């Protein structure tokens, strides 16, 4: 008869409390033994001694507790260099949403933060401290490989660690006995084992070992309880079982998530043979119960056998493999504006990408060459279709970089031709003075544009000087073809006073400005004019 999650939680609750009490008693005994080392033997029998030892124990425990549990959350976050999730990132947004959902299901009893650990390992951990802060950390690796329900199950598991006080208890227990263990180690190091002959030390050492065993036992019980609670919240034992199954075969951050945090993790970062074997000794010496056993319990709740789960996982893997084996159409990969390759897309999906432009680098999966998108006739058709949709009047000129028809536009009251894709502008030479003279009438120079213009002009000044000195080391960009006659255009600065690079066709009297170049030129000239004007106004 499989146990329900409610039974498991109730049973584990009772056990954890009982054993935690024993652990605390053990702490007092260890303190008493330590105190006895520094006190004359005759006092041991008196009641005063025990009272004295008790007071010291409480005092020391209080200080330990404050130091170890006061600021745990920040220590953990800093120690793992974890970051808050980015709401603009789709997967991080999902994490934020899931955190909200968990807050709903727990009735908003406690505010929990969540952070992402920048690591490819797969693990999650929870921490809470005395200030009332609580945090759930999840590695980027786990975050990106789990499905939504699986992630929910993991977060619910960790949230229960926080809500039930597991995190605080674990920190307390670890810090209380940690100091004694460290003290014993130091003493044995400095005395080279001589002090160990003292029976009190032997006793203290034995008790500290016993306490760590007890601690591990409680930690294992906590994991079972958190698993059960996760199912209570999400009602989805399969998702948690699948996650544990997946974790059991992945890198869980051994060496990255430092020791001391392992009790807080969903699975032990260190993979040890002991963890995965059952039996008396294995059970005694591991912080986490065997994953297989945890999965069995979860599957018992869902009434599914582990072989069924395995088969399902295999079927999924096979289906995924089949999906990738026979792509229906040639798959395209495209580089997005952030210089990352995306894909595979079929032609329809490619057409729906908002950032696809004729200058986007694309490649197909089976070919090794990378081309601009306009060179691929199939993709080029997308841009033609987009232009038609936008109902602009296409001119007979084509953009020298995108090879798409230019569209006639009204600019500063006159007609120019613009490319809808790269925002470059083609203007007849006769119209340029008009445009410059009208600068600031329709749209004043934005701060961004003036700053950009100043920077570019300064850079070009350096370049111009280098050119003159014959030390320009930069590779020259290939010359663009004239949009009208297709002959190469000459590249020059607009003037030596306004160092903005333009492309000019001397046959057709046309000038091509790349994106922002025309605006920059306008801003430069406008600012110079105002500079020229100002001193005059002052002198008047």
């Amino acid at each position, binding site marked *: 008869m499989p146990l329900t999650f409610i039974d498991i939680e109730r049973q584990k609750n009772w056990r954890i409390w009982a054993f935690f009490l024993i652990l605390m008693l053990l702490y007092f005994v260890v303190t008493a033994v330590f105190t006895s080392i520094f006190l004359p033997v005759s006092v041991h029998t008196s009641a005063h001694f025990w009272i004295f030892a008790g007071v010291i124990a409480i005092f020391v425990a209080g200080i330990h507790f404050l130091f170890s549990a006061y600021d745990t959350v920040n220590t953990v976050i800093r120690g793992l260099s974890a970051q808050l999730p980015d709401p603009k990132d*789709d997967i991080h*947004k999902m994490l934020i949403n899931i955190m*909200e959902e968990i807050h709903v*299901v727990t009735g908003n009893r406690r505010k929990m933060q969540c952070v992402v650990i920048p690591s490819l390992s797969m693990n999650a951990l929870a921490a809470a401290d005395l200030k009332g802060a609580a945090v759930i950390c999840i590695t980027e690796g786990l975050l990106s490989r789990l499905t939504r329900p699986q992630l929910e199950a993991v977060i619910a598991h960790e949230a229960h660690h926080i809500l039930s006080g597991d995190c605080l208890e674990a920190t307390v227990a670890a810090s209380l006995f940690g100091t004694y263990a460290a003290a014993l180690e130091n003493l044995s190091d400095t005395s080279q084992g001589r002090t160990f002959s003292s029976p009190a030390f032997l006793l203290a050492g034995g008790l500290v070992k016993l306490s760590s065993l007890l601690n591990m036992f409680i930690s294992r019980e906590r994991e079972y309880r958190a698993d059960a609670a996760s199912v209570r*919240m999400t009602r989805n034992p399969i998702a948690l079982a699948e996650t544990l199954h997946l974790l059991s075969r992945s890198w869980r951050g051994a060496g990255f998530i430092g020791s001391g945090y392992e009790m807080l993790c969903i699975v032990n970062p260190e993979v040890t043979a002991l963890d995965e074997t059952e039996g008396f000794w294995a059970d005694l010496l591991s912080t986490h119960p065997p994953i297989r056993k945890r999965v069995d319990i979860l599957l018992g709740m869902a009434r599914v056998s582990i072989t069924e789960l395995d088969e399902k996982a295999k079927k999924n893997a096979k289906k995924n493999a089949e999906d990738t084996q026979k792509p229906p159409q040639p798959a395209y990969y495209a580089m997005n504006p952030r210089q990352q390759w995306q894909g595979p897309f079929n032609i*329809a999906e490619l057409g729906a*990408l908002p950032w696809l432009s004729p200058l986007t680098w694309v490649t197909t999966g089976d070919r090794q060459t990378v081309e601009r998108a306009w060179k691929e006739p199939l993709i080029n058709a997308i841009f033609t279709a987009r232009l038609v949709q936008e109902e602009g009047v296409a001119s007979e000129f084509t953009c020298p970089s995108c090879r798409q028809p230019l569209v006639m536009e009204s600019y500063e009251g006159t007609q120019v031709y613009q490319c809808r894709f790269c925002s470059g502008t083609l203007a007849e030479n006769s119209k340029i003075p008009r445009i410059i003279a009208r600068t600031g009438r329709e749209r004043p120079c934005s701060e961004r544009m003036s700053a950009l213009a100043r920077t570019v002009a300064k850079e070009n000044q350096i370049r111009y000087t280098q050119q003159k000195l014959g030390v320009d080391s930069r590779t020259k960009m290939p010359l663009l073809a004239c949009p009208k006659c297709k002959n190469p255009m000459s590249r020059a600065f607009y003037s030596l006073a306004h160092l903005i690079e333009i492309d000019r066709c001397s046959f057709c009297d046309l000038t091509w400005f790349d994106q922002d170049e025309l605006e920059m030129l306008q801003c430069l000239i406008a600012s110079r004019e105002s500079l020229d004007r100002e001193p005059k106004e002052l002198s008047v």
Partner: protein
Amino acid sequence: MGGWIVLSVLGLILVWLILIYNGLISLRNDVQSSWKQIDVQLKRRHDLIPNLVSTVKGAMEFEQDTLEKVISARAMAVSATTPATKAGAENMLTQALGKLFAVMENYPALKSNQNVMQLQEELTSTENRIAFARQLYNDLVANYRTRLQVFPNNIVSSTLNFHPEEYFETEEAARTAPNVNLSLRGK
């Protein structure tokens, strides 16, 4: 001397009664506030749907029927006044949304549209929150009922007129498609 003992025993009993009474009151308030939480999440869903519909409308010309069902179900849910009609409308809305999501799978253009994906994520999250809010309500009701019925609380609760709150029941057990049945809750 004997009088003092009787008095202190009576005092203790009074304190104990007050403790039971206060405990029950706070449990009942928890139950009621978790009921409100469900409404908050339903409202969130109503607010998200117009955005989704306007975003997918262009790409889903051939599914006007599905879209219209979502729109009309939402309108009914928003304007419903009695619990019974509201329950029916929310049910319809859940089903219409489920249908819409299923149909959206057939449109690769939608799947690569970031806006749509973000809206879908928001709606999925909202559906979960609704389900979780109901679940929390039921868990709290179960807890409250137990407290009412155990001895000696049952004496206090029956004399002071505490009523067990009703469970929120769904027609199917499916967590992803929760059905509202507000009529079951006695008011």
